[in-house]
């Protein structure tokens, strides 16, 4: 799947401003960004629901504008609002989508049964979706998206508004999809979600991708991991600082932060050294830069650079 220089404006508001993306088959790709970053518009263009004002995009080898029908035959979309008929039962919803996927009446029934089994909906199959909780509704919605065995699945904020338990169950469903060689494109505001599910992440801001890569690579861009040592007394702190040759200004309130590669071997070495020097370590914490750090650093710097641009214009 590829997108090249996508542009989209609504009136005078530019939503996408030269978006480039390349997504490999069978991977989970997360579009990460705050509200208004252009995530949903990107998904709508890639899923043929909206046409771009400029640029090109291909999904499953087909152009989203010129070959939209071929694209539609390969994809499924689960939008922000659950796209289910509330007055129909879970089973009826699934069978309706099955018929629209040309499975025939018998085929649609079989496929509905499979998905009901897989999504653990057997107890509620004959209940109207209106009576479902948000999490169950989302499950039905996801199941409907899988009726046609899509090659590419778009999930627009799949867990927004769900309670933690429902979020966990949606996550496990998405993880299972990867095993079936489905390409998943998901948008999210939750860094934890991208970290948990995605092979690669694109951070979006102001209608373009400001960083792209694996979660680990993005974190490395921000900084290394740190081992934080909490020491029993200030005497221990001094001894530790001397033993590890750490500048005293890195110590703070009985804590000592040491750069680390995060491996067990390095932590063991660190603790052994401290023990040899008679340092009493109370507790240790491993601090990895989170995607929050990545996100804030990246979007923060981009705001910074645009301020500079403006300042230069004025000058």
């Amino acid at each position, binding site marked *: 799947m590829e997108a090249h220089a996508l542009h989209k404006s609504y009136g005078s508001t530019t939503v996408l401003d030269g978006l480039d993306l390349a997504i490999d088959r069978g991977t989970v790709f997360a579009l990460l960004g705050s509200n208004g970053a252009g995530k949903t518009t990107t998904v709508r263009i890639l899923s043929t*629901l*909206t046409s771009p004002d400029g640029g090109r995009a291909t999904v499953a080898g087909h152009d989203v504008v010129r070959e939209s029908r071929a694209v539609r035959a390969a994809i499924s*979309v689960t939008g922000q609002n659950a796209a289910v*008929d509330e*007055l129909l039962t879970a089973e009826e919803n699934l069978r309706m*989508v099955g018929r*629209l996927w040309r499975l025939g009446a018998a085929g649609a029934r079989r496929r509905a049964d499979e998905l009901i089994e897989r999504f653990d909906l057997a107890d509620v199959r004959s209940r109207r979706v209106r009576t479902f909780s948000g999490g169950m509704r989302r499950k039905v919605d996801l199941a409907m998206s899988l009726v046609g065995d899509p090659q590419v699945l778009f999930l627009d904020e799949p867990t927004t508004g769900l309670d933690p338990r429902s979020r966990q169950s949606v996550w496990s469903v998405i993880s299972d999809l990867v095993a079936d060689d489905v390409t998943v494109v998901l948008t999210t505001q939750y860094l934890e979600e991208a970290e948990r599910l995605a092979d690669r992440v694109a951070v979006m801001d102001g209608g373009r991708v400001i960083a792209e890569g694996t979660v680990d690579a993005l974190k490395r861009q921000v900084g290394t991991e740190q081992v934080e040592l909490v020491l029993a007394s200030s005497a221990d702190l001094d001894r530790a600082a001397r033993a590890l040759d750490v500048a005293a200004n890195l110590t703070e309130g009985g804590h000592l932060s040491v750069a680390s590669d995060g491996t067990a071997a390095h932590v063991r070495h660190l603790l052994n050294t401290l023990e040899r020097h008679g340092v009493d370590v109370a507790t240790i914490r491993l601090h990895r830069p989170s995607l929050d750090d990545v996100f804030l650093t990246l979007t923060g710097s981009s705001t910074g650079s645009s301020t500079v641009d403006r300042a230069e214009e004025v000058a």
Partner: protein
Amino acid sequence: MRDALEPGWVVSDSLTMIGRSLRLSIRNLDALITAVVLPVMLMLLFVYVFGGAIDTGTEYVNYVVPGIVLLCTGFGSATTAVSVAADVEEGIVDRFRSMAISRSAVLTGHVVASVVRNAFSTLVVVLVAVAVGFRPDAGLLPWLGAVGVLLLWVLAITWVSVCFGLLAGSAEAANGMTFTVLFLPYVSSAFVPVETMPSWMRPVAEHQPITPVIETVRGFLLGTPTGTTAWLALAWTVGLLVIAFVAATVLFGRRTAG
């Protein structure tokens, strides 16, 4: 759409959507009951309460039934507008659009279900009317004529409702818009002869689509001469149908485009 769909699939998709809309109609019991009970209540009200005071030159029940049937289509149109608006407002239309299916099938489903709903509520109204003394004096052919005119009217008003549904941003707004259709029968010859209205209002009542349609149905069922009214009714109905159909098609394209 450059890559077109085979006609067979258009039929198949439409049938699936018709099944969906019919099922939703039955499940949406409140709306169904409203669309049947309200006109029946109004008919009883007019026949037993107001009817005695209104001189139409014939049994009032015979006079008022065609009007009630048209009023009934107004209530039916509210349901149609609301369900179209709800589909667009909620995510389901996006799901359908992201599938390789016939685009128009969703609207076909709504329209056919609307006609079926209206036919059903009209039948109930007519049966109750017969029970309270409605005695049309018509042969088979005039009956068929009346049914034909009513079906055409229902189809036209359905497409107008689809337009309302597509124009409105929400189900509530769509419901509000159908007020116009609900109100029109009162300013027509539905309940009282137009001649009894003040002179400034008479042109309004005479030159709106409901009056000729009602007069034509009356003419067919009660054997009164229809004259040019039938042609006028036909012109109004077909005109409305064509305009609403084109408008709905354009609106649907616009509402569901990026």
